[in-house]
């Protein structure tokens, strides 16, 4: 348990992504099976033991420590598991090494709710404070060390110099503690065979278009939709949905999964439509209502019905279409559409343009909120994992911009923690007041960051904890992909992907844009 609890502590305190990856990789290389497999399951959120409830842990500690002192401690510390881990009465504050992670997992697995507290207490006595913390987090089923499943798998891949996309392919067909995966990773066994399982295939991704022009005889154009890129994997018996990161998001969109019964793998964009939106694809904001929800209510599905706009067909039955040219896959996809429910699935239409300039005009002219830009796909391109040069391009709509006034600044995270690098900016109301309209923490160069940091420090007028209010004198040109109505902000507006495009030292604050002006950009 010692190495696992040290790993968790390290992940809690390490700030950089690379640092976290190195910690995971070291652990995966240096820890025996099946401990490391259980750890990987815990880090990726695939170890759901839930042996005890939080209330049972409260009872355990009240039986051992003065309840008043426990309450005072908990008020002070905040987190229940941490409080109990620190409070646990024990003579020697050491981990005696008698408990491995696998022993812990096995014991917790087989427990009834009634026997859990006693078994848990017996284990607590063998551990030190970080070990007790890890144990309690495992036992209550919420590890939460602030890393994504993808990051954990990337760490695993890095440990054995594997391609993380290759790991993703196998991921969903294997069960913890993933011993065949480790054996394959170390070259001691064959690659596990995922046949017949609804597993994830890595997405093909696009490069941003940098060329001035492109030959439309060689490239087909279609709209780039502003939803969630999704992969539908059906085996005929089971259907799963995967996000771009390879996370299984079937649970958030059961309406889609139920509507698909084919034996095929498709690539598309998940969107929601609502009657109030005229039945068309609604903006990303509407989609957010459904994202990240574990359980989706009937009302939610009704108000924000999801559908998938299909881009590509990767596999049909036993046929792997990925090596075939895009034109052939597109034909197969159009034929395949016939068997799908048109309420839930449509096809992403191709843009007919006589030439590149005409396409540029179409792109500039679209006001559809669900359109992010244009995709250009080489007509003879196979479907390959990742971003391959010269096959697919994304050509985003030009960002919108507004001149805003810096109002507040906050320190950044990680390497930026000594800089004021997060800025809240506002625009003018009719009454001549500044109203915050957004927050940005990117877009500037290192040099500009230094300058902005100095500006904040020398122009602070107020401090609220970590936040500094600044003299309302600096104009920032803010770029953003789109802007939407929002009830959450006082201005009634929410920007999508705002970033600092330029520092307008030349412009007086009084000449910055108005909230009213911004509202006219709402899509």
């Amino acid at each position, binding site marked *: 348990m010692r190495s696992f609890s040290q790993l968790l502590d390290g992940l809690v*305190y390490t700030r950089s992504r690379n640092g976290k990856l190195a910690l995971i990789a070291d652990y995966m290389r240096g820890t025996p099976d099946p401990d490391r497999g259980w750890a990987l399951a815990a880090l990726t959120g695939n170890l759901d033991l839930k042996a005890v409830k939080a209330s049972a842990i409260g009872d355990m500690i009240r039986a051992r420590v003065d309840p008043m*002192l426990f309450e*005072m*401690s908990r008020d002070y510390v905040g987190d229940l598991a941490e409080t109990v881990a620190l409070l646990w009465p024990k003579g020697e504050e050491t981990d005696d090494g008698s408990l491995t992670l696998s022993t812990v997992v096995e014991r917790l697995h087989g427990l009834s709710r009634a026997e859990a507290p006693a078994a848990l207490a017996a284990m607590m006595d063998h551990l030190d404070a970080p070990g007790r913390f890890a144990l309690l987090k495992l036992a209550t089923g919420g590890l939460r060390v602030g890393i994504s499943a993808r990051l954990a798998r990337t760490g695993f891949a890095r440990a054995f110099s594997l391609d993380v996309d290759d790991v993703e392919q196998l991921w969903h067909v294997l069960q913890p503690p993933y011993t065949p995966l480790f054996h394959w990773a170390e070259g001691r066994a064959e690659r596990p065979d995922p046949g017949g399982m609804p597993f994830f295939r890595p997405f093909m991704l696009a490069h941003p278009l940098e060329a001035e022009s492109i030959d439309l005889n060689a490239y087909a154009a279609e709209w780039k939709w502003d939803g969630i890129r999704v992969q539908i994997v059906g085996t005929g018996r089971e259907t799963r949905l995967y996000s771009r990161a390879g996370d299984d998001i079937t649970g958030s969109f059961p309406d889609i999964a139920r509507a698909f019964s084919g034996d095929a793998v498709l690539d598309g964009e998940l969107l929601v439509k609502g009657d109030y939106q005229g039945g068309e694809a609604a903006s990303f904001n509407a989609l957010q209502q459904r994202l990240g929800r574990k359980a989706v209510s009937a009302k939610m599905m009704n108000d924000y019905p999801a559908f998938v706009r299909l881009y590509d067909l990767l596999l049909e039955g036993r046929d792997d279409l990925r090596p075939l040219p895009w034109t052939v896959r597109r034909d197969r996809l159009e034929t395949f559409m016939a068997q799908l429910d048109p309420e839930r699935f449509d096809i992403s239409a191709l843009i007919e343009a006589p030439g590149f300039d005409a396409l540029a005009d179409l792109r500039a002219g679209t006001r559809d909120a669900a359109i992010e830009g244009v995709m250009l796909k080489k007509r003879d391109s196979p479907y390959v994992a990742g971003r391959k040069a010269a096959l697919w391009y994304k050509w985003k709509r030009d960002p919108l911009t507004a001149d805003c006034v810096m109002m507040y600044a906050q320190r950044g995270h990680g390497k930026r923690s*000594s800089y004021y690098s997060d800025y809240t900016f506002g625009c003018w109301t009719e009454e001549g007041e500044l109203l915050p309209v957004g927050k940005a923490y990117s877009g500037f160069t290192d040099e500009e960051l230094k300058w902005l940091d100095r500006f904040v420090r020398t122009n602070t007028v107020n401090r609220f904890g970590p936040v500094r209010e600044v003299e309302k004198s600096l104009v920032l040109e803010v770029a953003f992909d789109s802007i939407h109505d929002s009830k959450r902000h006082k201005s009634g507006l929410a920007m999508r992907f705002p970033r600092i495009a330029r520092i307008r030292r030349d412009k007086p604050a009084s000449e910055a844009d108005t909230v009213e002006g911004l509202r006219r950009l709402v899509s």
Partner: protein
Amino acid sequence: MSHWIEPHPTGIYVRPADAWIDPSVPRERALVTHGHADHARGGHGRAWATRETLAIMALRYGTAAGAAVGYGEDFRLGGVSIRYVPAGHVLGSAQIVLEHAGERVVVTGDYKRRADPTCLPFEPVPCDIFVTEATFALPVFRHPDTGSEIDRLLGALHANPDRCVLVGAYALGKAQRLIAGLRARGHHDAIYIHGALERMCALYGSFGVELGELRLATGLPAKAMRGAIVVAPPSALNDRWSRRLPDPITAMASGWMRIRQRARQRNVELPLVISDHADWDELTGTIREVAPNETWITHGRDEALAHWCMTHQMRARALALVGREDEDEG
């Protein structure tokens, strides 16, 4: 009931001596336990303190009229017999033992029971009224062995030869104890210090505390400090000052580091639980040892310690002195 010792929000008044213990406002006669700013202030008419504490006060507030008191020496003020006894907290720190009318009162100031190479160890004195601090008076605070915390620091240093370890440590006491602890653990490389530590480290040296080779971190190129330990006051950890350092691993030495959220709030990557205050077991153990009739609690988690006393059939009261407890100290 009026006692000859009276707690007030601004300090403890010893009526028959007409003197205040650790007053937070200027007084004519002040008895000072140690040099931390929440106990020692400038501007008193006359301050009774150890030689070391007077030197620290002179460094911080300029010279003041002071009466040096040696550890263990008895002196009288009014009708009170007074003795200063080591508190083990920082250089020069003392408990003040007062006897009057057949009653003995011990005021600890801040104290700890762990070994500290930079000051004399705490000496328990049985008494009638024990006036204690309670900075870490919650049972979640159990400081681990100091040596193993220092070994973790050295481990991180050796595992990252291209970086430096920047340790936040309170300028009076913690910084010097950490440096002395590193020396005791066999680390003899030059240690780099922030300018704010320079004079205090020199003062420790003048009282015979060996700190080895110290170099000022100011004005050096980053690469000079690769693979080195840099000690700075906690306020410098996340500030511009640290930008000059070679990809620092941020550490902090404090009892507060026991709590994850505390460490994360400060962006600390390597929390070191090294404290100059007694932990829960030391606080309760010391009360048992000196076995007072009554325990008075000056500052900190006073509710919890008072509750513990009560449940162990001991009388206790929280004094709620103001202006105590500096978050960075600990």
